[in-house]
C-alpha cells in the first residue's frame, strides 16, 4: 500500500520511525508545529523550532526518500501569553516562502480561553492575508465539543476563509458532523485513549462517507503510534472495504487537500 501521513510530530520521534513508515508505504509526511511538552521561554525558541521544521527535519526524512512538509504557528497550548504569541506570529511570514511549508497550523484551542481565541484569530487573519491553507487542532476530551464549536465560529466569522482550504483535526463522533456540515475537511486522529481507535474511525467512515475526511497518527512525544494510518488501513480491509476505498482514505484524500498548496508534490514513483 501507499499512504500519506498528514499529521505527525517527527521532531519527537526516533529515526527508526522514518524507516518503519517508509517501509509501510508512507509517501509523504506533514508536520504541524506543536507544543514541545514544556513552554518555550521566548520567540527565539520558536525561531529555532521553525528552522528545525523547515531545514533539519526534511533532511532527516530525505535519508529515507520521504518528502517532509510542515505547518507553522504557535500551538494553542502556548497561546495564553498573547504578547509572546504576537511575537511568534510576526516571525511566521519569514518562513512561509520556504519550499516545504504548507500553511498555518496546528492552530486552534486547548482550554477554550479568551486569550487562546485571540491568538486563534491572529493566525486566521495571517492565513487569510497570505492565502495560506489552515490546519486546526481541536481540544482534548471534555473540551473538544465546546472548542470545536468556537473554532468553527471563528473560521465562519472571517469571510476571507474558504472552508475547503481548512482541515479541522481530531474529530470524534460528536464533532465530525458539524465540521463536515460546515464545508471543512475533517481529520481523524488515531491515538490511544484520547482520540479515535481504528475501529471507531472506520465506523465514522461508514456513517459519514469518505468525502473531505482523512486519517492521521499525530504521533508525538507521548504514547502514540507512527504506523497508526497503515494499521487503520488494515482495519478497513478487515471490515471488508476495498483496496480502492483504503487508497482513497489514506492517500487520495490527503493528496487532494494538500495539493491545494502548489508546493506539495510527490515523487513520480510514490
Amino acid at each position, binding site marked *: 500500500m501507499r499512504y500519506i501521513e498528514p499529521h505527525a510530530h517527527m521532531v519527537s520521534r526516533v529515526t527508526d520511525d522514518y524507516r518503519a513508515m517508509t517501509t509501510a508505504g508512507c509517501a509523504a509526511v506533514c508536520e504541524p508545529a506543536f507544543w514541545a511538552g514544556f513552554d518555550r521561554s521566548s520567540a527565539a525558541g520558536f525561531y529555532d523550532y521553525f528552522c528545525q521544521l523547515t531545514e533539519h527535519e526534511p533532511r532527516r526524512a530525505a535519508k529515507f526518500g520521504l518528502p517532509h512538509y510542515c505547518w507553522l504557528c504557535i500551538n494553542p497550548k502556548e497561546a*495564553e501569553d498573547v504578547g509572546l504569541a504576537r511575537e511568534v506570529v510576526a516571525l511566521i511570514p519569514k518562513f512561509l516562502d520556504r519550499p516545504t511549508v504548507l500553511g498555518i497550523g496546528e492552530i486552534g484551542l486547548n482550554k477554550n480561553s479568551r*486569550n*487562546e481565541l485571540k491568538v486563534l484569530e491572529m493566525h486566521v487573519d495571517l492565513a487569510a492575508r497570505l492565502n495560506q491553507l489552515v490546519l486546526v487542532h481541536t481540544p482534548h*476530551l*471534555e473540551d*473538544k465539543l*465546546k472548542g470545536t464549536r468556537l473554532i468553527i465560529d471563528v473560521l465562519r466569522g472571517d469571510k476571507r476563509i474558504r472552508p475547503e482550504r481548512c482541515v479541522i483535526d481530531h474529530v470524534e*463522533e*460528536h464533532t465530525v458532523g458539524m465540521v463536515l456540515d460546515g464545508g471543512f475537511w475533517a481529520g481523524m486522529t488515531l491515538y490511544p485513549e484520547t482520540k479515535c481507535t481504528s475501529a471507531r474511525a472506520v465506523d465514522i467512515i461508514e456513517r459519514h462517507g469518505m468525502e473531505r475526511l482523512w486519517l492521521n497518527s499525530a504521533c508525538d512525544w507521548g504514547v502514540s503510534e507512527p504506523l497508526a494510518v497503515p494499521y487503520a488501513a488494515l482495519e478497513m480491509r478487515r471490515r*471488508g472495504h476495498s483496496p480502492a476505498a483504503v487508497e482513497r482514505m489514506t492517500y487520495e484524500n490527503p493528496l487532494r487537500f494538500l495539493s491545494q498548496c502548489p508546493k506539495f508534490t510527490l515523487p513520480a514513483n510514490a
Partner: protein
Amino acid sequence: MNRQQLLDLYFLEARAKLIDIAAFLDRLDRAEGEADFRLAAFNEALGRLDRNDGRRAEEVLLALSDPTVEPALAATTKTACGAWARKS
C-alpha cells in the same frame, strides 16, 4: 458486514473492555474516600448505552463534554481530565 461477522471480529475485544469497566467500578467500590465529578460523569455516560439508535458513542462523548458556550476567562491548566466539572 452483517451482525454475525461483526461479532466474530469484535466480540472478544468488546467483552474484555466490558470486564475492565466492571473491574474498574468494583475497584472504586473497594477503595476508601470520596469520589469526584468524574465518577458521576462516568455513570451518566454508562446510562447513555441504554439506547439503540446507533448514537451510543456520540452520546457517551456528549455526556463527558463541557456543554457551555462562553470562552473561559483564562486557561489555568493545559490538561484535560476527561469529564466536565459542572459548576455548582
